[in-house]
């Protein structure tokens, strides 16, 4: 991978700088797909430059994927594919089908139309275990009231990696991997603690370690930062960024906070009414006014307004730490 590519994934701001230097490369990759209202309704596909840069076998590819509950489609004809190693965030108002889309990708919810492909293979022809070797899911924090130890909890993530046998038990490699994942989220010191004695932030880090122990190539995030305070939200997202950096893997996340989403994602997909409304690099999406369109709200004015609160005091947000 070239220098510019790996820098791109690090953070959108630096990537913009790098892109300015390597102009030729940038030319190809810009180009936000913005669809107008009329186009969304009719579902017309407009493919721009971004789509041309395709690998023969994308890790994940959706072709007109539709799914829903009780005969009604919540997600309608969504198509996109991952490019190499990138972090994607799904944004959109409540009920637009983000979580449903994640569930379809992970095989939890059967499709009513279209296809979801992993490495070019339709997930309908894959066993759950094979899907889970590629894709792991991390959900929002739920309360636990049973006393597994931290290590036992993370070991559950090794399930898909253990050999099938009569009474299979964790081997040396599994223990090493669990330890490594606990160290990655800085929880190794608490390996023996029961999880019902942990704080919310710690618990979510344990679940992150469990997700990492699965050694997936793609992690799906279903609002994992819910119920966490600001610092823990940022910490969790940074752990995820670090993982995708060092392992060269993908993340597709639903995060409601636009700040967190832009911290994590190289690419944003905007959804509305179960369809993709826009698909482009984070910076380009934030620059355009498709966010406002999708949410029906002047998002940038809201953000500016919030930042303004600090300005009269003369404090600099970036130097406060």
């Amino acid at each position, binding site marked *: 991978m070239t220098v510019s590519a790996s820098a791109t994934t690090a953070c959108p701001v630096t990537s913009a700088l790098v892109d300015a230097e390597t102009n030729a490369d940038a030319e190809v990759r810009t180009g936000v797909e913005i669809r107008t209202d009329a186009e969304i309704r009719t579902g017309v596909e407009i493919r721009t430059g971004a789509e041309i840069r395709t690998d023969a076998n994308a890790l994940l590819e959706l072709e007109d994927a539709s799914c829903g509950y009780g005969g009604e489609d919540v997600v309608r004809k969504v198509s996109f594919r991952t490019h190499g190693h990138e972090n994607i965030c799904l944004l959109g108002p409540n009920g637009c089908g983000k979580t449903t889309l994640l569930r379809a990708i992970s095989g*939890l919810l059967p499709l009513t139309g279209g296809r979801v492909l992993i490495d070019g293979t339709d997930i309908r022809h894959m066993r759950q275990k094979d899907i889970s070797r590629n894709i792991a899911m991390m959900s929002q924090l739920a309360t636990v009231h049973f006393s597994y130890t931290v*290590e*036992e*909890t993370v070991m559950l993530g090794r399930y898909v990696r253990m050999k099938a046998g*009569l009474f299979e038990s964790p081997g040396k490699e599994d223990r090493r991997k669990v330890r490594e994942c606990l160290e990655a989220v800085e929880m190794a010191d608490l390996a023996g603690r029961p999880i019902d004695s942990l704080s919310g932030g710690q618990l979510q880090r344990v679940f992150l370690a469990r997700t990492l122990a699965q050694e997936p190539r793609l992690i799906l995030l279903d609002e994992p930062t819910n119920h966490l305070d600001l610092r823990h939200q940022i910490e969790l997202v940074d752990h995820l960024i670090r993982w995708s950096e060092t392992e060269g893997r993908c993340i597709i996340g639903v995060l409601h906070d636009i700040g967190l989403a832009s*911290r994590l994602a190289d690419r944003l997909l905007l959804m509305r009414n179960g369809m993709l409304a826009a698909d482009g690099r984070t910076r380009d999406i934030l620059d355009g006014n498709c966010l406002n369109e999708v949410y029906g709200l002047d998002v940038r004015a809201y953000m500016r307004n919030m930042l303004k609160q600090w300005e009269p005091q003369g404090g600099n947000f970036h130097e406060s730490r």
Partner: protein
Amino acid sequence: MKWPKRSIRTSTESGNIRTGTESGNIRTRELEIGMAGSGKGPAILLSVFCALIILIVGIGVGSVFVPPREILFIMANRILGFRLPAGVEEITVSLVWNLRFPRVMMAFIVGAGLGVSGTVMQSVLRNPLASSYTLGVSSGAALGAGIVMVTGFSVPFLGRLTLPAVGLVAGVLTVFIAVSFASRMDRAMSSNTIILAGMVFSLFINAILTLVAAMSRDQMQRIIFWQMGSFSLKDWKHVATLAPITIMGILWLIRYVRELDMIVFGEEQAQSMGVDLKKVKWMLLGLSAALTGSAVAFSGVIGFIDLIAPHVTRKVFGASHRFVVPLSALFGGAFMVLADLVSRTILTPIELPVGAVTALIGAPFFAWVYFGRSRKGVS
């Protein structure tokens, strides 16, 4: 923007190299974890020891007291072929070997099966009140047995095993009908739907059983007594029939301890971790229904053990099913032996229904373990 300085890769490398002080750190930490895992060792040994004591007491105590020494001699004689020392009377041998021992074994096996099936049901349905009983196994088995008693028919080749066999089949069948009904109502087969359907079926079948009993008054007493549960008149033939079913069922369920652990965290999480949820769920529900069904068919409806065995073992040994499943068998078995002992000794010569005794001594014990220990944990 600031990025964490330490990357994952460096931490792994240091783990592999294990230089100087660092390796020491890692080793002590491993030691701690190893101890945390095997810290249950002494507790497990103690439980096994307690269970053995209860077994011997269960065999020894009764209308005639047999000292533990003599019990051990008789066991050694019958199982290992050692010669009986002088002074052990033939009648004692017969009492221990032909009456008490099979009865105690029966109680232990039934209790073990009920304990494990309660654990599995609670975990699969993620509901602390779920059990094969709430899903209608006991009522199904009772109805099957009731019909056999009233009509007096017997399946060829099964002979006197007709009653338990019909009970087992009817019990398992009820669960399958209830679960398929639930899956029709709700394709995702969510736990609440299953429990609801099970309870509706259970009540419905109980009503039919009441009708059947009312229609043949001469058999009413027998049906009611059978429903209360008893281990009297159990011999080695019963043990030889039930033991293989129960042992195989429990061993089969132990294969699924990791799936159970994952399901406890939530069905979607389990599935995204690679569990073939629908298949595993059917398998676990069917197996635990078979365990309960066969136990109920042999001994009648004995409640409470399936409820408290999982709670108590979880409280003592933690949540991991690797421990909870086998140890709830041990607890359920030992507890059932104790309940049977109380039922036949406390009001001699009257024998209480063992189902009443399990609740009678189970409820206070449960309260003590649950509230007594949790209060200590908080302070």
